[in-house]
């Protein structure tokens, strides 16, 4: 049987949506398109053996990062994951420095020292991707505590996968977030898989129950629908800014590609049909473009955006390929501040 998104959220509040002008939806489309193109280029860099190591593609999940980050300010914080390129771009990072990081070049966001799984960008509030599954639950919660202590109205967003709910740290952090009413929003990207294992084999009970246990406000949303994600997230952010405490947003989504770029034969853990169902029926870019066309937008605009984005990506890749590696003297710099 083909999986269907569970917890599908009805179309978001039309009033909230009406307030956005079409340009803003187009901007979100562009952001999603940029992530898609970035990831395709990353995949290509890997398969052509021009990228060191492995990387985890976000393709298929773009609406989550974009819907969430569009509801944030630049000075709001996010923590990200091993599958973090989408979060990073959605929060405002630039393509060239990201590619440079993926290639280990000095021009990268982390001077090439972090790589794909550790991109951080202080300027856009990105406290860093984390290669420890669930490892940033405490960090995001701590950022929220810091916000509260400093009397700021920022919020902190913790992105993590469904698999990260296997880690005890989440529960320790969520408990404190609720006790102290911290402005942190836990965004669970439920793409159903923990590497090569479906979460029906790794998660008992319900995913939302794990936050509800602590009395945390919890919402589920169709993570393929950027309008739904954006709309719900905007409410949760407003709530957090008002001092009403943490929230848990469960986004039902799907990764269209393998767990990482090297995960090609996936038949032992999921079927081609299942993948196809999602790619064809639940592609977040197609869904948004389709809806905007229903609202009267001309079809050609999306192709134009895609094309412009592709050129940007190409230039950024070239920049990264041409960029120098860090000097050998960098190796023991930044161990201590």
């Amino acid at each position, binding site marked *: 049987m083909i999986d269907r998104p569970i917890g599908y959220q009805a179309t978001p509040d039309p009033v909230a949506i009406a307030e956005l002008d079409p340009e803003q939806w187009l901007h979100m489309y562009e952001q999603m398109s940029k992530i898609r193109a970035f990831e395709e280029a990353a995949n290509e860099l890997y398969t052509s053996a021009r990228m060191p190591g492995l990387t985890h593609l976000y393709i298929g999940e773009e609406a989550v990062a974009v819907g969430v980050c569009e509801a944030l300010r630049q000075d709001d914080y996010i923590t990200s994951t091993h599958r973090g390129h989408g979060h990073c771009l959605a929060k405002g990072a630039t393509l060239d420095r990201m590619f440079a990081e993926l290639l280990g070049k000095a021009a990268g966001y982390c001077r090439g*020292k972090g790589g794909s799984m*550790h991109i951080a960008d202080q300027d856009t509030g990105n406290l860093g991707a984390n290669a*420890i599954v669930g*490892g940033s639950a*405490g*960090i995001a919660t*701590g950022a929220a505590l810091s916000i509260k202590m400093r009397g700021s109205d920022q919020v*902190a967003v913790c992105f993590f996968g469904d698999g990260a709910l296997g880690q005890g*740290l989440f529960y*320790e952090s969520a408990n404190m977030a609720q006790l102290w009413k911290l402005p942190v929003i836990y965004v669970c990207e439920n793409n159903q898989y923990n590497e090569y294992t479906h979460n029906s084999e790794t998660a008992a009970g319900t995913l939302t129950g794990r936050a509800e246990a602590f009395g945390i406000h919890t919402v589920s949303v169709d993570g393929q629908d950027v309008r739904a994600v954006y709309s719900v997230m905007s409410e949760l952010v407003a709530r957090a800014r008002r001092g009403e405490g943490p929230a848990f947003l469960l986004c039902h989504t799907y990764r269209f590609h393998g767990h990482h770029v090297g995960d090609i034969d996936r038949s032992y853990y999921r079927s081609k049909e299942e993948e196809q169902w999602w790619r064809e029926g639940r592609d977040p870019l197609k869904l948004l473009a389709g809806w905007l066309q229903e609202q009267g937008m001309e079809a050609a605009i999306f192709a134009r955006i895609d094309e412009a984005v592709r050129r940007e990506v190409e230039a950024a890749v070239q920049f990264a390929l041409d960029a120098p590696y860090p000097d050998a003297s960098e190796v023991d710099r930044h161990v201590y501040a």
Partner: protein
Amino acid sequence: MSMREPQFSLAVKNPGVREITFAEAVREAIAEEMRRDPRVFVIGEDVAEAGTVFKVLKGMVDEFGPQRIIDSPISEAGIAGIGVGAAMTGMRPIVDIMFGDFITLTMDQMVNQAAKTHYMSGGKLKVPMVLRTTMGATRRSAAQHSQSLHAWLSHVPGLKVVIPSTPYDAKGLMKAAIRDENPVAIFEDKMSYQLKGPVPTTEYVLPIGVADVKRTGEDVTIVATSSMVQVALKAAEILAESGISAEVVDPRSTAPLDKQTLIESAKKTSRAIVVDEGYQSYGVTAEIAAVIADGAFYYLDAPVKRLGAMDVPIPFSPPLEDLTVPTPAALVDLAKSLCGKV
């Protein structure tokens, strides 16, 4: 105390210096820094009204309130993680881990997060946090409440590790740790909290990474950490009676380690013993002994000897527990045999 009794305290001899306990020194350091810098706060189990189980922070919540002296759930990993996140975003958390044995639960946050963030971000993010915890046995607390696990964190680049031995050092180094831009772990010996010593009334900060010669001597260098400094000083007194002049050097921090001072002392005396309360194997004594054996090789008249805690889980039974820790007597024996005076 009656007015007629002679007053031997340093406070009288040196104006501006009083004798206070190690615990008081720690409290003073944290309180002063909290007054100075609103970003500093404490988070931990029973740190507020209870003032920690060792009562080190007693009364601080009255001055700083429960928003800055924060009682947490029993969630060591969680509070370490919260510390990292708060430190990355402008605060200066002191995460209080009651017993050093519980740092097991914080290792991922300390080692994979706190220690690496600055480097992995190419120098952009910083984690100026303090992990405050304890070490030391002989409290009859058994195997899960008696360990000295500072060697682990000393092994991890990106972390600093401080192990003060006196009230003076405890205060000056705690203040330095709080002001440091890096994650710093401080291990306080539980048996030292009541140790008294002179501490200036005026402000001072000690540099992290500078060893202190606690006693000068000519015949043998004893490198001693934390409570082992007192053990070494006692041993040195006994050794003096046998005509052996021992120099006691306290590294005060294991990371960074002031190799130069240790090596110079060993070069001078031509013999060295390293004593530390962590398990001996793969512990702090190994690194320090290896450093000295290398750096002072051509000056040494005898092998560098090590005295750590016995490599056994720490037993509850008092007569057994007492066998597991380095004592002045064991140190004296070792020094005598090293100096060819058995």
